[in-house]
């Protein structure tokens, strides 16, 4: 044999191989679960229940990366080696950023999933995204303060790239509109938030933008509430998955949420179809991402067959009706323009409901065009 064998794509009627590399286990397993449910529903929706594009079956292979980029890279290489031309998934930003170059090196299509990092947008011409990016969150946050000029905005975020990106976006978006932006940063491992709450309070902001992910969020909100931060200013943050709502506790009703998605935020055809397919009949944060990924896969196969370049052409500039409403893949940098929501949380105990206050259209929440890197 040869020192290495890589299968090549099959003929016309051969099934189309699609590889999904996402978190089935590990800390982001629940995001992964929503993603895959959404994907299945979306595939069903886009192929009208046949699971086929033309006469070619879409053959989905799932691989678990457990949130570890190294595992994701292994799985991706394995899939590519077996002739897969379309990779999707990546629940975490770290995974997305490391899988994207692999896709470019091997000239396969990569549709990143829930990973929110802005850096995926414009990463290379083979990389697309089926979810929102941090920038879109921040633009949505901006919509809460109306005229930003002269306002004082504080960003409270974790150390690290996620926090950096949010801070930078706020500075650009809200600061660019005339507000003064400062930041309070905390280590992601922090367990005691009083010092940070005090710092925020001392800054007396008109708007506080909080970018916090992880299991300590409950303690963080409680401290902000106890130290009177929530009562003294408008606080905006992203609304996480449903399961996390009760952890806001009493603080929940005092926060203005920007939302990527929650059940009931939209009432599109796709949303109805997705609701019907998803276990429990309730949609959540990342169902739309999986759904959109499936729609994009079907579109790519329909128009491109086995030719990745054609797939890219077919996707660039494509506008479609997703779960959230009208989505558009911006041709220049593959950003996915999509509606974003303002939401309020109400309820107590374990029963909370979110209601949409306002919907921003894809264009309203559009990030600036990124330079395509490769």
């Amino acid at each position, binding site marked *: *044999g*040869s*020192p*290495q*064998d*890589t*299968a090549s794509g099959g003929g016309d009627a051969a099934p189309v191989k699609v590889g999904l590399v996402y978190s*089935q*286990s590990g800390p982001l397993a629940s995001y992964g679960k929503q993603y895959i449910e959404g994907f299945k529903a979306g595939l069903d929706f886009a192929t009208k229940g046949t699971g086929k594009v033309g006469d070619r079956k879409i053959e989905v292979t*799932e*691989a*678990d*990366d*457990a949130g*570890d*980029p*190294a*595992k994701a*890279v*292994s*799985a991706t*290489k*394995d*899939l*590519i*080696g*077996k002739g897969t031309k379309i990779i999707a998934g990546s629940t975490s*930003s*770290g995974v997305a*950023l*490391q899988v*994207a*170059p*692999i896709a470019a*090196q*091997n000239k396969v299509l990569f549709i990143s999933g829930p990973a929110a*990092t802005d*850096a995926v947008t414009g990463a290379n011409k083979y990389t697309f995204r089926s979810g929102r990016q941090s920038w879109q969150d921040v633009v949505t946050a901006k919509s809460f303060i109306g005229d930003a000029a002269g306002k004082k905005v504080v960003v409270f975020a974790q*150390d*690290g*790239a*996620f*926090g*950096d990106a949010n801070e930078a976006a706020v500075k650009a978006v809200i600061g660019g509109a005339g507000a003064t932006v400062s930041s309070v940063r905390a*280590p*992601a491992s922090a367990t005691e938030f009083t010092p940070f709450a005090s710092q925020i309070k001392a800054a007396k902001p008109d708007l506080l933008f909080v970018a916090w992910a992880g299991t300590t969020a409950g303690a963080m909100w409680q401290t902000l509430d106890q130290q009177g931060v929530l009562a003294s200013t408008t606080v905006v943050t992203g609304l996480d998955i449903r399961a996390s709502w009760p952890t806001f506790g009493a603080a929940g009703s005092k926060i203005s949420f920007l939302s990527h998605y929650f059940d009931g935020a939209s009432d599109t055809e796709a949303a109805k179809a997705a609701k019907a397919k998803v276990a429990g009949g309730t949609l959540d944060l990342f169902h739309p991402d999986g759904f959109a990924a499936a729609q994009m896969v079907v579109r790519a196969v329909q128009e491109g067959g086995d030719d990745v370049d054609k797939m890219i052409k077919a996707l660039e500039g494509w506008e479609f009706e997703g779960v959230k409403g009208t989505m558009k893949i911006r041709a220049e940098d593959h950003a996915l323009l999509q509606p974003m929501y303002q939401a309020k949380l109400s309820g107590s105990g374990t029963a909370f409901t979110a209601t949409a206050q306002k919907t921003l259209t894809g264009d309203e929440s559009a990030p600036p065009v990124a330079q395509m890197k*490769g």
Partner: protein
Amino acid sequence: MTEVKSAEVPAPPATVPDELSPGHARWHGLRPYLPLVALVVAAVLPYSTLNLPGVFEGPLNSPGTLQLLAICLVFGGLAAGYDLLFGRTGMLSFGHALYFAAGVYGTDVLITKAGLPLWQAALLTVVGGTTLAALLGAVALRTVGIAFAMVTLAFAQVGAILVARDFGGLTGGEEGLPLDVSGLPAALVGVTNTVNLYWLALAYLALVVLVVHRVSGSPTGRVLAGLRDDERRIGVLGLDPYRFKLVAFTLAGGLATAGGVVYVLIVGGASPHITSSELTLSLLVMVVLGGPGTRWGPVLGGILYMYLDHRLTAFGSSDAVNNLPAFLSHPLSQPLFVLGTVFILAVYFFPGGLASLRTRLTPLLTTLRPRR
């Protein structure tokens, strides 16, 4: 069977470095060549199209399998290098991940951010990592025992915090830093070239094994073995324990850094969890799983650990597991549950590590072998 006990006692393998004890005469002719044979077999492995369903996703020479094997080999080498510290010198370092991470991030940053060519980046990184190990070792070795473990842990923790803080956007924080491959030799890029990465990993492993074995069989290795037993005694014999420990620490640190260089090429990027203390802990687990201070134990331990770590995710989502009743399938679909359980079982079923298997099987083999 009441023969008087003989004075010539075959030494248990777990405690005596093989190099220092006479082996069986019959093996003497063959044994030196066995590693070479293993190396050659491993080197030609990518030419095999053998399919091992369940063991690997694809045939042996498919990119996925080669990638997995490459990662396993790197960790086999890392574990062997760590054993130089732990199994052979008796130093329990909880900060070994730092030097590996230095290799990964060092190479990545130098290539991606500074735009250096690979060979320069690699060279600088290995020199830098080794120097780092020498410096930090010089401080940490003022303590012994658990205090030493904790000081090394503290240093590694600082590394982890620095990487997470993402100063100047150098490390990419929790998102990691994908490797910019545009300046790399084409032979190391792309799925079609995975086999080259495999060979690179194999070369690394071979290098580490060679170094570790040469060193532990050398006069210095003898001193290191003595240090493991009684440091005070070494001092009274006229040797400076500190110097020898520092040499071992630096050498092991350098080997780990080199491992990081190879790893970053294989994975194509750096991510922060390689800086975590958990990685050091896994190294320790690998060594113990294999058998500390033995010739092949740590290597096998490292390979097996990484194999399980990667493959258990597939096992967890396989149909075989999903079809089980919920109380079984839920835990079994958690890779870490299976991994943890394997460690625990290993302690009870292979005390002394995988390397002790041979000794434990010997009586069995002797009884099975027809008598002459």
